């Protein structure tokens, strides 16, 4: 019980202190995860829509793989990216291991299947409704894709959130490829793991509370945008 009370005290202290070390950890967490989610959306939106709209041999397997990869274990992804980026690995010459870039790569790999798989489902459902009209218009593939993604934008906002939730919360991948180096690759989750192992439970909990608070803020922001825009356009 004590540790909870002191954790909240610590969290509050952390929040108001504007401690530069703490702020750099939060900043790096946001930078890595937001960049990864943006990249994952750039790949996952069109990929999911393509799988939804095209028929090709092995499509069933592709959907199965996409859905399965939604649950990729972060440590496994971390390990694979580690092997690829390590000095002896195929991309070792780039010298990316233990940099934020490596963390972004790992999280992009984690989040892309989530974005693609959910996008596929949403676009497939919308196609049931729009398909005949778009084909009647003789709309080309680019127009069709753009129409479906544009009109599914409110559902896709939720997909972005799911992806962000996955990225900001995971520790396995960033820990392995980033190395949790102070001031370089330390993010909130890896800091929590470190503080816990050092026995600084209240600091760890404090960081955890700040992490939850961050997630809450992002979700609330999207929800506000969604409801006001949704009301304006009555798009449900």
């Amino acid at each position, binding site marked *: 019980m004590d540790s909870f009370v002191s954790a909240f005290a610590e969290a509050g202290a952390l929040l108001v202190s504007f401690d530069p070390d703490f702020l750099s950890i939060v900043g790096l967490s946001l930078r890595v995860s937001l960049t990864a989610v943006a990249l994952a959306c750039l790949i996952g939106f069109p990929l999911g829509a393509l799988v939804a709209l095209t028929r090709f041999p092995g499509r069933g397997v592709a959907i199965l793989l996409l859905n399965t990869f939604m649950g990729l274990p972060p440590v496994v992804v971390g390990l694979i990216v580690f092997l690829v980026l390590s000095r002896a690995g195929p991309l070792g010459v780039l010298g990316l291991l233990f940099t934020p870039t490596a963390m972004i790569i790992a999280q992009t790999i984690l989040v892309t299947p989530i974005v693609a798989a959910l996008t596929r489902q949403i676009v497939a459902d919308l196609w049931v409704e729009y398909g*005949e009209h778009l084909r009647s218009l003789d709309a080309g593939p680019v127009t069709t894709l753009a129409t479906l993604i544009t009109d599914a934008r409110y559902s896709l906002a939720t997909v972005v959130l799911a992806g962000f939730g996955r990225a900001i919360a995971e520790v396995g991948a960033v820990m392995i490829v980033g190395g949790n180096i102070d001031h370089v690759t330390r993010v909130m989750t890896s800091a929590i793991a470190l503080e816990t192992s050092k026995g600084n439970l209240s600091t760890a909990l404090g960081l955890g509370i700040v992490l939850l608070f961050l997630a809450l803020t992002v979700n609330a922001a999207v929800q506000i945008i969604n409801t006001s825009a949704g009301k304006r356009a009555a798009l449900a």
Partner: protein
Amino acid sequence: MSGPASILPLRAHRLAFEAGGTRLLDDVSFILPAGRRTVLLGPNGAGKSLLLRLCHGLLKPSSGEVRWAIEGRRSARRQAMVFQQPVMLRRSAVGNITHALAAHDVPRADRLTRANAALALAGLSHVARRPARVLSGGEQQRLALARAWATEPEILFLDEPTASLDPAATRAVETLIEGFHAADTKIVMATHDLGQARRIADDILFLHKGRLLEATDAAAFFEKPQTKEGRAFIAGELLW
């Protein structure tokens, strides 16, 4: 309406369509010339919607073929279709029309003017900025017609466009269809509504159980149907 040559007449040659081993349409042939309003008449399940979709190219026939006077993309872009349940994009009323114009590669500068003209024609100018999906059923169907109008089709397929509308909305839709006819757009409409068929049709294609039983002048059909199914349908006896 636009371009040098017409995509009409439309020739359907021995069309058949099967799904799951059931023959839903069998050996249907006809020619649709420009000008006259053609109504596909028949009870539910006769294959009217199916036939419209085959003509429009939304479905591929199991055998037989649909041929236009001009083939390929140019013919596809000069057709339009309005469905029983209008497909409303999650955009404003005017946005639904500019989207269709964009899909037809109409220059951006012209889209809004043409969309607004079409909305005015359909009496929808006052709801131009409203989301299409909050419009009433009648307004949505008029918007679907305005959207088709804006793309200036040579032929308009209508699949029971008033089946779920009240009498006033039905009248408004029929007036718009009349407008298409007056602008020399070929009308091909499926309906099971005898009164509507009498009001609109110049020619009747009478379908029953996937077969084309009569293809004739509307007046002649209503005066003296040549088949017992046709007589029964006009007499209002149920046909299954």
